[in-house]
Structures are given as C-alpha cells and as structure tokens.
C-alpha cells in the first residue's frame, strides 16, 4: 500500500503539485484582494479542488473532451449548489426520498399510504432557491450585456468562482499532461487583466510569473526524465542537481528583474535630468530672475471623525429632553392618554460613509452656507411626501440640524456639509438629488422649521429599482476595509443567496439581525484586534443600535448593496395632547440607509426592539407622494444663470452690468437735472453737448454752436428749442419753467446720442 502510494505520488508529482497549489494560491489571493466582496478564502477551496480534479482527469486514459465535460459539469453543479445554499434541501431530499421508499414498502405490507410531502417540500425549496439565484444571475448578465454596472455580490462571486474553477481545473489537467505554459496561461491572463484594472495585489501576479518559469523548467526536466526512463537511457544523477540549481538561480534572477525593472521610474529619471539644469545656482549667481509663478495648488482635508461613533464610546442613557418636534401630521387631542398610532420618524443628524473596522467617519465635505429659506435641492424623484417639522431644541450639545427625510429648506441660516453637492438644476439635467450626499447641516438657531420630503417608495418600486448604481455611489458606499474577515462575506452571501432583488437582500439582512441578536446596553468593548461587525456577528451576538447598524451596513456592502450609517434620534414619545414628538437623550440612535437607483436612500431598521419602517403598497405611495413647490421667477432666473458655464456667465455679466450702469447713470442724471434749477440744468445740458459736438471757440455764440450741430440731427426743432431755452436762461429776465426743462431732456438725450455716434464716425474716418 505504502509502495503503491509512493509510486503514485513520486517526488516529481509532489513538487509539481506543490507549485500548482502555490499558483492557485496566487490566483485566488490576487482575485480575492481585487474582486470586491470575494476574499481569498472564498476562492481557495474552489481553486484547489478544481486543480486536483483537473490533475486527476489529466490521466492519459481520459481524453481532453471527457475531462473538459467532467470538469465543467461537476464544477457548475457544485458551485451552483453551494451558491444557492442547496446543501440543506438536497440532503433533505435524499433523506425524505429514503423515507418515502421505506413508507412505500410499509404500505405494501399493509401500513399507511406513503406521503411524499417531505420530498415535495425539499424539491420546492431547491426549485425556489435555484430560481431566486437564477433570477439574480440573469439580471446580472443582462445588466452586463447592456453595459450597465450591477453590483450583485452573489452573482459576481458565482461568476468569479466559475472562472477560478475553470482556470484551476485547466491548470491541473494541462500540468499533468506536461504543458506548464499552457496550464498557467489562463490564470496568468485572468490575473493580469484584473490586476491591471484594479492595480492591486501585483505581488500575486509577479509570484505567478515566477512559479510559471519554475514549472516550465521543471516540466521540461521531468519530461526528459520520463523519456529517458521509458527508453532505458542511462542518465546522470548530476543532471537533477544541475537543473534544479540552475533553475533556482535563473528563476531568482528573473524574478528580481521582473520586480525591480518595472519599478525603475524611467520617466522620473528623465524628468529629473531635465530639471537638474534648472535647479542650478548659476543663473541666480548671474543675476537672472524668474518671473514670479503661482505656487502649487494647496489642497486640504478636513477630518470628520466623530468620536461618538467609534463603537466603543457607548450609548448615552440620559432621560433629558433633547428636542420636541411638531409635524402637523396629527391634530392635538385633549387627553394625553389617548392611544395614537403616530408615524415613526427617525430624526437624522449625520450620515457616515467611511468604515475602518473600528467605527465610522466621513469623507471630506464641502461647506456651503444657506440663507433661511434657501433650497438644498431643486429636483426630487417621485415617491416622496412633504413633511413640515417644527423643532425646538433644548439641550443639544452639537450644532447639527435635525430633521426627518430629505431636507428641502429651513427657516434659519444653515451650513450644509456636502460630500457630493447636488447641482441646482430646475431643468433636471444636472446631478439628481438622489445622487447627492449630505453629511449634515450646522445650525445657528435653537428653534427652526424644516421642510423635508420623506421617501415613501412602494415595495414594488424598491424591488424594481435594480442595481445600476452611479459610479460615485459605488465607489463610496461599497468599500470595506481589509480587516473585515471572510466569514462576514460568507454570511452576507449566505443571507442573500436566495433573495432575487437588492430590496429582498436588504430585508433578509435586516430580518436576520432583528431576529437573531439580543439588544443589550451592557456589552464589553470591542477587542483591539477585532473588527466590529465580525465581533458582533460571531462572538458578541448582542449589543445596541451602533452594533446592529454597523453590522447591517457591513453585511449590505459585502452583499453588494450601497449602505451608509445614519446617526440621530429615534422617534421618541409622541405627546398626543401637544401633537409633538418628545425626544430624549436616550433616544439617540443609529440606523442604516441603503441606496436604490432612481429612488435614493431608503432607511432600514436593523436594531431589535425598535419599530421597523413601514413599507407601502404602490397605491398608497401614489396617494401620499408630493412634488416640490414651483420656484419663483427670481429663483428660476438665478438658478438658470448659475447653471451657465463661467465663461458664458462672464460674457453675459459684463454687458448687462454696463447696461445697468448706464441705466443707473441716466437715472442719476435725470434726477440731478430735475433737482437743479432750470437755468443750471440747461447750462449743464448745453455744455454737455460741447463734449460730443466739439468745443466751440471763445467767440462762438450759442446760436452759432447750434447751427454747427444742426447737420447731426433730424429733430432740428428740439435743438433750436433747447438753444432758445438756454439763451433765455442766460439772457432773459423771464425764467425758464421746470416743465420746459423736463420736456427737453428727452430730445437732448437723443441729440447727445447722435453726436456720440457722429463723433465716433469722425474718429473712424
């Protein structure tokens, strides 16, 4: 037995299999690190199993077609069953089938008739789960065919697993056939393209190249040995030593070259060589000066890491009232004890997009000051309802504004903290509101009215939303730190495998958390070397809202659903008599929002014991939905103007400004002429004509000047009248009436305009 085993696994096989295993490790490590939601340990068993199966099928008695058929069919079935979680139903089906057969025998011997219900249940479960997975895979494939980005982690992992399976199976098969280069080419190509796209885990690719070179050398050596042994050719033992030493040295040399050479910054070296003369001090010594240039662009980031949302900070249990909110949804009742089913609102303060394994923080934000009544956005997708909220804050330590839903405007000055600012676009051609990203808003007042819009999408809308996430959302809300262990990803895949739509997947995660974990405020701190979600899900298994929300957000991201953490306050207690919500410090809360394309962020409540969010039917949503109020003309003009490109805005602003300035000057002139005495006004008007009609000589009379100007005007009567008035004001004892002056202003201006044009024409000639 031992001899047979040794013969079957000769040292050359052990060595080749070891290198094959290392190659598989490189491939899965590279893919695991670069493919989101699929860490190495998810692919490793698949790759190793496929490689061993391929190695076994590479036996000479099995031809390529049979091997390929076996590999593809077995791998497909295995991966499908594993992804769709069919292990339980399949085992159940086997068990129930045996039971059914036993019951048939018993029935044959006079027992009760057999009942195939167990088989049917298991069969139904298999069909249902397979159909669910198929629906997701189909949606994923059609999205790809339509060149639309879809982020279904289960379909994605299934596809990658299949690719890993085929690449590793082929590698095992071809390596057994003595074709190392052919064996590793698919894996190398796949890893190269993935690594090129992601620019991550280049080490794995490099190592795979080294393994490929080693396998090529060893493959040739082993093929030679086999040929010599087959032909009975005597060979020297020194060949093995020579080959292995040479191969090791060469592989090390080539590996070093492959690692070092690409790192040589050829471009930088050339650039430095080019810059070196410029850095020379000789020009300064010679007194040559450089034109003062602009300094480099200074970028700065603003840290936004709220310590209170590092999980270990713990909850605040104070019963102190923080604020009261009136929404006007219900009228006040005369009795406090009246049972009122008040709507459940979550008063949000901040949202967080970054998770580091210990807690949440926000990316950099853009601060924008908004006056009272200024709108945060101008477009809103359908499926929202308006909600007026009157806040009275009492002892809120922070300076954040609180509201429920999507804040439209507040009657106080606020500073919006945008991670992604929406474009204020009345035509709806800019960045949609639901793609904007608001950390929160800082307030000045303690009492304010907020006008917000609550998302009320129907279940049908949510299910039909799809997974075509905008790039900004994908980049920001699907990232997870490397500290998140594989078992979290595995749990996410397991929870969502049979859920056909993202909404169902989110519901599955929410339900899992709400039903399987105990709410507790007495929890130990998270160990330093642990990741919060992993610690909560697999070890602690109890906690408060921060743990639940963190776990759901991490699981959702691991399942390919864009998620963020929201902090603020729960509904609080509804005071029916005052028709207001009384919110206390102990109502501080965290929950989760998940993004749905075309709808926006939708809230989910994973914390056990907290009331969940009601999901509406399609009909109810239509009835409740509202639209934004139409903007005023000024707002429209202002927003339209803001939408113009800067160059256009400048091009428009200058002439408009000049025109406005001219109008202003004219108005001012008109005012001055009306205020001055008629004699002074006429004098100012007549002398003003000198500027454009040419300075008269010292002996030129007003009548002569008037005669000189007559060719420039068609309204000669007005010019004569003005001259007459001027002479009257100068020389007549009869004063000029103010009315005469006002009536002459218009023809005077027309004449002045003609003189301006004539003067310009003369200058041009």
């Amino acid at each position, binding site marked *: 037995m031992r001899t047979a085993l040794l013969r079957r696994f000769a040292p050359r096989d052990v060595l080749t299999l070891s290198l094959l295993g290392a190659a598989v490790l490189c491939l899965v490590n590279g893919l695991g690190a670069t493919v989101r939601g699929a860490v190495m340990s998810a692919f490793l068993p698949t790759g190793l199993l496929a490689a061993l199966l391929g190695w076994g099928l590479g036996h000479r008695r099995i031809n390529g077609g049979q091997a390929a058929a076996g590999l593809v069919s077995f791998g497909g079935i295995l991966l499908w069953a594993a992804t769709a979680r069919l292990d339980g139903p399949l085992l159940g089906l086997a068990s129930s089938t045996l039971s059914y057969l036993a019951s048939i025998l018993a029935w044959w011997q006079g027992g009760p008739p057999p009942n195939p219900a167990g088989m049917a249940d298991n069969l139904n479960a298999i069909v249902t789960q397979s159909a669910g997975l198929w629906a997701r895979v189909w949606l994923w494939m059609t999205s790809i065919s339509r060149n639309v980005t879809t982020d279904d982690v289960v379909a994605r992992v299934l596809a990658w697993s299949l690719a890993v399976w085929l690449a590793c199976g082929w590698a095992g098969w071809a390596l057994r056939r003595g*074709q190392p*280069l*052919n064996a590793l*080419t698919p894996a*190398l*190509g796949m890893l*190269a393209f993935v*690594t*090129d796209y992601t*620019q991550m885990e*280049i080490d794995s*690719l*490099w190592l795979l*190249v*080294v393994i490929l*070179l080693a396998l*090529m*050398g060893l*493959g*040739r*050596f082993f093929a*030679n040995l086999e040929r*010599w042994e087959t*032909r*009975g*050719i*005597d*060979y*020297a*033992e*020194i*060949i093995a030593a*020579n*080959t292995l030493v*040479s*191969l090791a040295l*060469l592989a090390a040399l*080539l*590996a070093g*070259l*492959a*690692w070092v*050479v*690409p*790192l040589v910054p050829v471009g930088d070296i050339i650039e430095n060589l080019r810059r070196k003369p410029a850095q020379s001090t000789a020009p300064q010594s010679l007194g040559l000066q450089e034109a003062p240039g602009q300094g480099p662009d200074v970028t700065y980031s603003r840290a936004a890491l709220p310590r209170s949302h590092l999980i270990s900070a713990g909850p605040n249990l104070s019963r102190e009232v923080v604020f009261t909110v009136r929404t006007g949804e219900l009228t006040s009742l005369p009795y406090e004890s009246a049972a009122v089913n008040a709507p459940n609102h979550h008063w949000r303060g901040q949202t967080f997009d970054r998770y580091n394994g210990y807690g949440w923080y926000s990316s950099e934000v853009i601060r924008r000051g908004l006056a009272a009544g200024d709108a945060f956005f101008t477009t809103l997708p359908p499926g929202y309802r308006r909600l007026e909220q009157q806040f009275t804050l009492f002892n809120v330590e922070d300076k954040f504004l609180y509201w429920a839903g999507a804040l439209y405007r507040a009657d106080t000055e606020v500073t919006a903290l945008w991670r992604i600012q929406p474009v204020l676009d009345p035509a709806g051609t800019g960045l949609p509101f639901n793609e904007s990203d608001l950390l929160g808003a800082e307030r000045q007042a303690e009492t304010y009215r907020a006008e917000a819009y609550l998302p009320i999408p129907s279940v049908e809308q949510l299910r039909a939303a799809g997974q075509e996430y905008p790039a900004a959302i994908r980049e920001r809300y699907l990232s997870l730190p490397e500290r998140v262990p594989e078992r979290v990803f595995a749990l996410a895949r397991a929870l969502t495998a049979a859920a056909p739509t993202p909404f169902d997947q989110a519901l599955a995660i929410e339900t899992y958390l709400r039903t399987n974990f105990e709410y507790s405020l007495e929890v130990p701190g998270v160990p330093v070397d642990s990741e919060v979600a992993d610690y909560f899900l697999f070890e602690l298994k109890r906690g408060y809202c921060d743990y639940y929300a963190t776990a759901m957000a991490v699981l959702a991201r691991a399942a390919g659903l864009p998620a963020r953490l929201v902090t603020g306050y729960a509904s609080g207690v509804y005071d029916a008599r005052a028709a207001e919500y009384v919110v206390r410090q102990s109502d501080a809360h965290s929950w989760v929002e998940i993004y749905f394309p075309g709808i926006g962020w939708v809230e989910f409540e994973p914390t056990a014991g907290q009331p969940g969010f009601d999901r509406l039917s399609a009909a109810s949503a239509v009835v409740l939905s509202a639209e934004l109020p139409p903007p005023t003309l000024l707002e429209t003009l202002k927003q339209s103007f803001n939408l113009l490109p800067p160059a256009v805005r400048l091009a428009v602003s200058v002439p408009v400004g000049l025109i406005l300035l001219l109008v202003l000057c004219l108005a001012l002139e008109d005012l001055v002429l009306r205020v001055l005495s008629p004699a002074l006004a006429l004098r100012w008007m007549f002398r003003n004509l000198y500027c454009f009609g040419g300075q008269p000589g010292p002996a030129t009379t007003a009548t002569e000047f008037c005669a000189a100007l007559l060719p420039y005007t068609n309204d000669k009567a007005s010019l004569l009248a003005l001259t007459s008035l001027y002479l009257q004001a100068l020389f007549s004892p009869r004063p000029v009436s103010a009315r005469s002056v006002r009536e002459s202003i218009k023809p005077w201006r027309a004449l002045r305009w003609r003189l301006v044009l004539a003067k310009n024409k003369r200058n041009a000639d």
Partner: protein
Amino acid sequence: MRLNNWLLLILLALSIVMQVIDPSRVWKILIVGLGSAWLVGWLWARGLARSLQLTREMRYGWAQVGDRLEERFTLLNASLFPATWVEIEDHSTLPGYRASLATAVGGEGEVTLLTEGYCARRGLYLLGGSTLRSGDPLGMYTVTLEDPASRALLVLPPVVPLPLIDVTPGGYLGDGRPRLRAPEESVRAAGVREYRPGDPLRRIHWPTSARQGKLFTRQLEGNPAGDWWILLDMDQNAQAGSDQDSTVEHGVMLAASLADRGLREKQAVGLAINGAEPCWLTPRENERQRWDILRALALAQPGGLSLRDFLQRGGKSFGKQASLVIITASTRTDWLESLAPLLWRGLVPTVLLLEAASFGGQGSSQAVAEQLQGIGIACHVIPRDLLNRPEARPGQAGRWQFRQSKITGKVQAIQRPEDLDWRRLA
C-alpha cells in the same frame, strides 16, 4: 534550435501591446519576466547549439558473437553556459547495444564516457550516428544536433569446438586439387592423372605424357583425399525456432565451426548457402577463405528456395570427388532424389540434420536420417542441446555479464547463468 512553445512569444507580444495601449506595472512585470526568460533561454540554447561537439571512437572494426564492444564518447562544451542536460541518442543498429545516455557538461567543459556492449547476433551493423539534444534550464528551447558519423561493424558467427562429427572423406588418395606452394610431405607417387590447368609444371609426369601424347600430372601420397563442400540449407520453410535459438543460427554456427575445423585440418573448404542470396565459395584452405566463409555466414539470411531445387540447380558446381557436408533442418525427403547425380559424380555427402522438433518445429528428423542411412549416406542428427552445452560454448557456463553506467556507477546484469542453484559438495 526549436522553441518548445510559441505561446510564450504570443503572451509576450500581447503584453507589449497591452503596455502600449494601457501602460501599467502589470504588463511591465509580464514583459520583463517572460521576455527576459525568453532572452536567457534563447542565448543559452544558441550558445549550446554552437559549441556542443561529440566525438565517438571504437576500438575494433569487427567482432564475433560474444565479443565485447567498447566505445568512447567525448562531449565538448565550448560555451560559457553549462549544459544542464545533454542527451546522446545512439542510432546504432547492433542488437542489444545501448549507447544512448544523458549527462551534463559544465561551461567550457568536457566529459568522456565509455560504453561497453555485447555482440549478441551475427550480421553487418551500423555503429553511430548520433543525435545530441540539450536545452536551457527553463525549457524554452531544445537544441538538436545531428552527428552522422558512423561505421560498419561486422559481427561474425561464433566458432565453437564441435563434438566429434565425422565427415566422410570424398575422392581417392591423391584426388583433389594439389596445393601450389605446399611443402612436399611425400615424394611417393600414388598415380598419374590428366593435367588440369593450374597444376604445377614440376608435377608433370613427362614419360606418361610422352607416351600418351598429352600432359599428365603425378599424384602424390599425402595430398588431400577430397575438398569439403559445406552446404548450408537456409530454406525458410524448413526452419524452426526463433532468434538465437533457431535452426538458422545453429546451422550458421555449425557451418562456421565445421569450416574452421576443416581449415585447421588443412582441408580446402568451400561454402554453398541456400539462402536469400545464394553464396558459392569454392574450396580453398587459406586464412582468407576462413574470413570469406565467416563473412558469408555472417550475412546469410533464409531464402525461399528449397534444398531440392538448390541441389538440382547448383549440384554441378560441386565438382567431383569431394566431401559434401549438408547442414539442413529439412524433415522432407524430396531433396534426396537430387543427391543421386552428385553421388554419381563421386561426391561423398555427410548430412547434418538439425533436429527441427527440438527447436519446436514439425516433422521427424529421425525418419530422414534412417532413409539416408538406408541409402548409405552418413547422417548425424544435431539436437538443440548440442551447441547449447557448456562444452560446446566454452566460457559461457556460469558467465555473468554486467553493464555498469560510467555516469551513475549503477551495475546491471545483462546476462546471467541459467542455473543458479547452490549444490552441496558430496
């Protein structure tokens, strides 16, 4: 120099194209890794292709079955790169001779190897040429060098001491062809006969010539009683057994040994072979005749002509008054009719019947022998064991033959005694 897998260059080209389209460190790693591997492999293989040289030398130009063959291989590598493996494929046609080997040669180094072989079968064989194969350690390229140098090697049939086999002398005292320069062992004349061209003039008996009016030659006592004609029947339809253990090989061995014996006994020995190419060597008794007979026997192969037809067509060539030794495995008797004219011409046949049954053939040799004896022809039935006995093959009993690898030092037995049992001394 052959690239073992073009996929490498395709991958390299693809990486270069990708680097041009989408510059990245990924493609640089592939380009540098695969490209440098290809370049090193190409340089290595090119160096070996230009500088590997093989020289083959052997000690002897001919050999007999059972002889050892010794050959020397000198492999020279003038390149700086070591040849981590060099395979020398030998194209020699000598059965059982395996000179193919694989070794390694350092850079600017030389390796000398000795190979030994064993000539197991008679025939004309070619020793060499050779094919040299080598390659770079990464297995990118395979270098193949052909060395056409070769040399013919004639392996003569073995000559073994024969048990006593009486060859009936043919002719009378004084018959036969007188030797031209033979010392006169006897001066007593036994008689005269008519002059034949080639007879020495000093043997002319002038008185009788004068009386008869034509030339007569004296016949002296001590002259051979008659020449030996050895007729080897290689009719393929009459043979039995296979390879070395066949009536063909035993017949060849018997003919060679008989010729040797006859020549050593100063008989003029001729050879006739009924084989694929009929062979006639007229009786002579010099060393050249020994070589010619052995060479003819070495190359003899079975043919399709029956012994009966052969005797009918070529019987007159045997002349008169000679001993005819017929070596055949035929169990048929039809050829006996063809013997009658030979008998009438004074030929005295001795038939050596190889016992076909003992070689796994059909028919009974004893019946033929009885019929031959019935008509007064001497006949010996040669069983299979006759030439396989230790005394028939001196030096073969208890003989081990080993082959030791000059490279690895491994020893392998290529011939071992059949009887290896230990026996207690009485």
